C-alpha cells in the first residue's frame, strides 16, 4: 500500500515539476515579538529535492521561521525566497508553489473531509471535476480514502494531520513546509509520511520539516539543522549531526529507573570510564554510555549483580534538549550559518 502511494506521488509529479532549480533561501532573518527575539539573523538554504529537517526544542524559533516562510508573518527584517521568488515582495506568487502544514494543524469542524479538500482544490483554481479527481488522489496518498465523507471533527489527531497534509499537496507544490507534521500521528502514519516525503523528494520537491525529536527526522532528511534561541547551532547530514551529538553506535543515553534513591549507585556510575554526564532525579538516573553494545550489557549486568535498587533500564531517544546541551556555541562561517 505504502509503495503504491509513493508510486502515485511520483506519477503525479512527473509532468509538473519545473526544470529550474528549486530552493529555500533565508538570509539574515530576524523575528521579534515584543521584547523577545524568536529568530536571530538566521541564514539557511535548502536545495531542490532536499528534505531538510529543522530540529529544535519548543520556543527555538522553528514555528516563527515557518510562519515567515509561509507568508503568514512579516519578519523584522531579512530576505526570504522560495523557488527563486522573494516571498516578502511577491507573496501571492510564492503561495502558488509551496504547501504549508502548521503544527497541530486545525480543520474546520463544520465540513466533511472531501468538502474541506474540495474547497482548497477550487481555491487553487481547479474546476469541479479536476478538484474531485485531485481530492481523491490526495486522500489516497495519505491513506484516508475511506474517511472521505466523515466530518473533519470526527477525525483523530493523527488523521487530522494527514488530512491537512493532503490539503497541502492539492496544488502539487514545489516546496513543502511542514511544521511538526508528525505530532499526534501513530507509527503507521509516521511511516506513511516518511515514504510520501521521500517519494516527493525524489521528484524534486523540496521539503522543509521541523520536529523537536532528532531521531524522528534523521531517517528521512538529507540535511538537518539544529536550531535553538533563533539560531542555527549545527547542520549537516543527519548521521554527522547525530554523531557529533553523541547518538552513535558507541554513545547512547541510558535511563535507570530506581526503587529508591541510591548514592552508591551514583558513585559507582561516576567511577566507570565509559559513563559520562550522570544526571539524577528522585526515581531515576540518566547517563551517557560511550562504549559498545556488548560493554553496555556488561555494565547493566554488573549493576544488577551489585544489588542496586534498580527497577528497570531504558534507552532514551536523543531529544533536542540533550542536543542543545551539547552545543553551546552557534556555528559561524563566512558571515552566517549555511546548511550547504
Amino acid at each position, binding site marked *: 500500500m505504502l509503495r503504491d502511494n509513493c508510486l502515485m506521488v511520483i506519477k503525479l509529479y512527473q509532468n509538473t515539476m519545473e526544470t529550474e532549480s528549486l530552493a529555500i533561501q533565508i538570509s539574515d532573518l530576524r523575528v521579534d515579538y515584543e521584547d523577545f527575539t524568536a529568530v536571530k539573523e538566521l541564514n539557511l538554504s535548502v536545495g531542490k529535492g532536499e528534505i531538510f529537517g529543522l530540529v529544535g526544542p519548543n520556543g527555538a524559533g522553528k514555528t516563527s521561521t515557518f510562519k515567515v516562510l509561509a507568508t503568514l508573518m512579516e519578519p523584522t527584517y531579512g530576505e526570504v525566497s522560495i523557488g527563486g521568488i522573494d516571498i516578502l515582495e511577491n507573496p501571492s506568487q510564492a503561495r502558488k508553489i509551496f504547501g504549508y502544514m502548521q503544527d497541530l494543524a486545525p480543520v474546520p469542524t*463544520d465540513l466533511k473531509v472531501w468538502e474541506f479538500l474540495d*474547497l482548497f482544490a477550487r481555491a487553487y483554481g481547479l474546476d469541479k471535476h479536476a478538484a474531485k479527481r485531485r481530492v481523491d488522489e490526495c486522500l489516497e496518498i495519505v491513506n484516508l480514502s475511506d474517511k472521505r465523507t466523515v466530518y473533519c471533527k470526527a477525525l483523530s489527531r493523527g488523521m487530522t494531520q494527514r488530512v491537512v497534509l493532503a490539503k497541502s499537496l492539492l496544488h502539487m507544490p514545489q516546496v513543502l513546509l511542514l511544521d511538526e507534521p508528525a505530532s499526534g500521528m501513530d507509527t503507521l502514519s509516521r511511516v506513511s509520511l516518511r515514504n510520501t516525503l521521500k517519494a516527493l523528494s525524489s521528484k524534486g520537491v523540496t521539503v522543509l520539516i521541523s520536529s523537536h525529536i532528532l531521531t524522528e527526522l534523521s531517517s528521512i532528511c538529507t540535511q538537518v539543522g539544529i536550531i535553538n534561541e533563533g539560531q542555527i547551532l549545527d547542520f549537516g547530514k543527519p548521521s554527522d549531526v547525530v554523531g557529533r551529538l553523541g547518538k552513535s553506535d558507541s554513545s547512547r543515553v541510558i535511563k535507570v529507573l530506581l526503587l529508591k534513591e541510591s548514592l552508591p549507585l551514583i558513585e559507582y556510575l561516576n567511577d566507570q570510564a565509559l559513563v559520562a554526564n550522570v544526571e539524577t532525579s528522585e526515581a531515576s538516573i540518566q547517563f551517557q554510555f560511550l562504549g559498545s553494545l556488548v560493554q553496555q550489557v556488561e555494565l547493566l549486568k554488573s549493576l544488577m549483580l551489585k544489588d542496586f535498587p534498580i527497577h528497570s533500564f531504558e534507552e532514551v531517544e536523543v531529544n533536542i534538549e540533550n542536543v542543545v546541551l551539547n552545543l553551546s556555541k552557534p556555528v559561524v562561517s563566512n558571515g552566517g550559518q549555511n546548511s550547504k
Partner: protein
Amino acid sequence: MNLSELLFWRNPIFIRYCRAKLRPVSLISWSLIVLILTGFVFTLVYLLPQRSDVMTREEAARLTIIPLFIIQCFILMFKGSFSVASGITREGMEGVLDYQRLTPMSSFGKIIGYLFGLPVLDYVLFLLTLPFLIFTVVVGNVSLDILFRLYSVFFTSVLLYHMTGFMAGMVVSKRFLAGFISQTLMIGLYFILPSFSRLGYVFFEYLTVRPVVYYELSQLLPEEFERYVKLDTVNFFNLNFSVVSFSIVIQALLFFVFFMIVLRKWKQDSHHLLGKHFSVITYAGIIIALMGSMLPLINNGRIFPSQSARRFFEVDPTSYISPNEALLIPGLFGIVTLLLAIVIIGQMTPSFDKQMKGQRRVHKLNENRVDPGDDESTSIFHTIAIIGIAVISWNVFIGYLFESRWYEGWVLSKYSWIGTVLSLGLPILIYQMLLEFGGRRLAFISLLLGWLLPLFVGVLMMIATDSLVNAGTYILMLSGFAFPYFSVEAALTVNDTFVVNFPEAKKAFMHVAIIYATLFPLLFMKWRQHHVELNKKKKEVL
C-alpha cells in the same frame, strides 16, 4: 483576479459555506421558525385592521410591509451581521483562516466569498419571506418603483452591516465578543449615531435605511402618516441628492473604508486597521461629509434642535436661538472632530514594539528612517495633518454659523482661531505623544483620569449647587473632551440680552490652556527622549 471568484455563487468560499450552513436539519429548523413567525405577524397585521374596519383590504396589505420589513431587517442585518462576525472569528480562532490566506485567490475574491458565504443561511431565510412580500405588492398594489428604491438601500445597508461584522471579526479575536461588538456597532450606527441628526449630524442618519424607509414607506401608508415624511431631497453643500442616492453613496463610502480595513487585516494580521495616509484621507472624508450635510442646515435653522423640533411639530420657527444652543452647536462640532481624531490616531500610532521593529529594519538595511507611510513610523506628522484638517474645518464651520442670522448680536473674537488651535491641537498632540511613548495602556489611563474623570466631577459639581459652578467649570475644563466647547464659549461673546451660564468660562479656558501649554513641552521632551532611546536601543540589540 479570477472572474469566478467575483461571481460569488462560483466562489469556492461561498460554495464551502453553502455546504456547511445549508445542511437539511439546520435549514429546515430555521425555515420553520421564520415561516411560522412571519406568517403569524403578517396575517395578524393584515387581518386586524380589516376586522375593525379601520382599513380596506388594499390598505391593510400595504401596512403589512412594515412588520415584514422589520423581520427582514432582523434576519439579514442583525442575525446576518452576527453570522459574519462570529463566523470569521471562529475561522481565525480555529486557525483555518490562515489556510485561506495562503491560497492564491485574490483578496477581493476571498472577501466576497466570506461576505456572501457566512450569512448564506440568512439570505435563504430572507428569500422565504418573499412570498409574503409578493402578496403585499399584488394585493396592496404597491409600486415596484418604490419597492426597488427601498430594497436598493436595504441591500446596501445589509452589505455595510455585514462588512461591519466582517471587520469586527477580523479585528477581535474572541468569537462571541466579535459577534457582540458587531451588533453593538450596528446598534450604534443604527440608533445612537442617527439620534445626533437632531443636532445637525444628519449624515449619520443616511448610514441607515431609515430615511429611505420613512420616505418610501410613508407613500404606501394612509395620509395621516404623511407629516412624518420630512425628507425628499438631501442638501450636500450646494448640491441636491435624492434620499436614495445619497444613502447609497454614503453607505458605499463607509463600506469602502471597512473594506480597506478588512483587506489590510487579510493581507497581514499585524497591520494597523488603516494605513497612515489613508487614515488622514478617511478623516478628511468624514469631516467633509459632516460639513457638507451640516452647512445647508444652518440658514433654515434645522441644525438647531429647537428649530428642528418646531418644524417637526409644525410650529412657526422663531428668529432667535438660545445662547446655550448657540454655543452647543459649534462647541459640539469641535468635540466631534476631536473624538474622531482620537479614534483615527489611536489605530495608526505604532506600539513601542512596532516602532522598534521599524528601527531595527532601517538600521539593518542602512536606511535613514522608516518610511513615513509605514505602520512602524511615528504618527506625529499625520497627527499634525489631522489637527490641521480639524482646525480648518472647525473655523469654517464657526464662520458659516456666525455669518448666519441666528448669531446676530454675537461677537466673535478675532483671536478665536487661536482657541481652536489650542483646544484641538494640544489635546490631540498630547494624546498622540502619550500613545507613542507610553503605549495604549498609559494613553487609556490618561484619558480616563485626565479627561473623563474631570468631566464627570465638573458636571456633578456644577449641578450640585450654585456656589460650585465656577470651581466645577475649572475642573470640567481640564478634560480634553470639554476643552473645545469652552474655547467656543471663550471666543463668542453675547450681547447684553442673554446671560451665559458659566461666566467664568473665559477665565477658566485661559487657565486650562496655560496648563495644557505647560504640559505640552514636557511631554514633547519625553517623546523626543523616547525616540532617542529607540535609536540607541536598536544599535545595542544588533
